């Protein structure tokens, strides 16, 4: 549907360019968030305000928003959801978790093993040092996992991680959520029904073969799956 209004939120360590292929395939108006384009935030609220600043024209025109987020863009989408209320039409979360789901995973040793790289970034000061001294190693590891971005975005990860704490809240939405998990994602285990019940009343889970950056690996499939999901949302509405 051409009346759809999409809002794409990228993850670590990407920029808005990660959405180019998918954006072209999704019918409707698109807004994208690019962390590297915003003034350095001082708190989680600054980040929310930056998101809402991008969405302000659409919200002023009383448009309903469909948030498509990936990786660490997903907790941001969940932080935004309460402020959008009934203006949030649906959410599509790709290989990412809500803050509550992250918390529940802290008790999962398998997930902790996959998230080994998170620890230094969640410690103030250590994240910046890691970026300064371990940049090349980190970049190499990420490229092995399918990352195709630019190395300067590493500093954003630190930012994300610190600000992520400010964004942590027990978000829950009454809008419908499509959670897509890749079975070969090197960083995250697929989402479970119990985890989805923590945050949404109405949801679909799709587990698909693929790696972490599905929007780059198979954008056509993803666009089709999103269109199918939205058809269901529109019919229900």
């Amino acid at each position: 549907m051409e009346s759809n209004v999409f809002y794409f939120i990228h993850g670590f360590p990407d920029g808005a360019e990660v959405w180019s292929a998918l954006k072209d395939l999704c019918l409707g108006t698109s807004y994208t968030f690019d962390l590297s384009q915003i003034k350095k935030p001082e708190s989680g609220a600054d980040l929310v305000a930056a998101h809402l600043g991008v969405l302000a024209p659409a919200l002023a025109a009383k448009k309903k928003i469909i948030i498509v987020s990936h990786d660490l863009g997903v907790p941001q989408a969940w932080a935004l959801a309460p402020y959008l209320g009934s203006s949030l039409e649906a959410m599509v979360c790709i290989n990412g978790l809500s803050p509550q789901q992250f918390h529940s995973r802290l008790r999962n040793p398998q997930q902790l093993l996959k998230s080994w790289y998170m620890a230094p970034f969640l410690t103030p000061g250590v994240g910046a040092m890691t970026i300064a001294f371990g940049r090349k190693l980190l970049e190499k590891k990420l490229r092995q996992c399918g990352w195709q971005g630019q190395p300067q975005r590493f500093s954003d990860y630190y930012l994300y991680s610190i600000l992520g704490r400010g964004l942590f809240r027990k978000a829950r939405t009454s809008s419908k959520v499509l959670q897509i998990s890749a079975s070969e994602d090197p960083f995250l285990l697929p989402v479970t029904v119990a985890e989805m019940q923590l945050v949404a009343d109405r949801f679909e889970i799709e587990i698909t073969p693929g790696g972490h950056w599905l929007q780059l690996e198979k954008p056509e499939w993803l666009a089709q799956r999103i269109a199918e999901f939205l058809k269901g949302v529109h019919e229900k509405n």
Partner: protein
Amino acid sequence: MKKTELKSYLQAQTLCEQVLQEASVFCQPGVSEKEICDLILAQFRRQGVKHFFHQPFAWFGDRSRFQDFITPLHFMPTARKLLKDEAFILDAAPVVDGYICDVGLSFAPQFEGETLQEFQRGQKILQGLYQSIPKLFESEISVADIWQKVDQELRSQNADNCHQFYPFEVLGHRVYKSNPTVDFYLLRFGLGSAQNILSHGLFSQLLGPKSKSPKEGLWAIEPHLGLKGFGMKFEELIYVQDGKAQWLKQMHLQEEAHV
């Protein structure tokens, strides 16, 4: 006061109104007063605002009529979440390019039936006060009498006077230029900007029931009324000079029409 200065105060007021209007869109059921105040602060930071006379306040539902407010701590933003179909008030006083402004706005969701009627009644009372307050400033009565007249008007309209619960029961206060290099906040009030106002005196800067201040100057006036289940207010800058009083916004509109 120079016209250019008044224009700067008006620009500050317009920016503040824009930010509060924008923030009101994000006051959705489930969002707390604290969260919305943090968001408004962030929105001001995005606009380049660094200092505040007072940081933003948000009062949701029955808190907007200062129900059971006893100490100044009760005015602080709380974890109370906005419920569906509740009215709310947003109030902020940023220092924009060295000019203090203070704006308060009331918002209501899509009310229906009796609550809608009550909200419309409140709007009418506030509109009436908007018309009558400049005339009161232009009349012979003292500032303390202005406070009493507004109080009588609210009572006659069967509405509660909620501004009597503000510190010093103020209906308004003066504003000045302020340029703090650093700012510390006590109960959300910027000590730098507050000190700037207080350097001119205390009671002469406030429009309270016992004030003996001259009327001339620039004031932020904030009548606040309480209705059944919620409160409503407006806050705007009014300039009084040579026995003539005008809201800054109207002064600007008149000038534009003149041009």
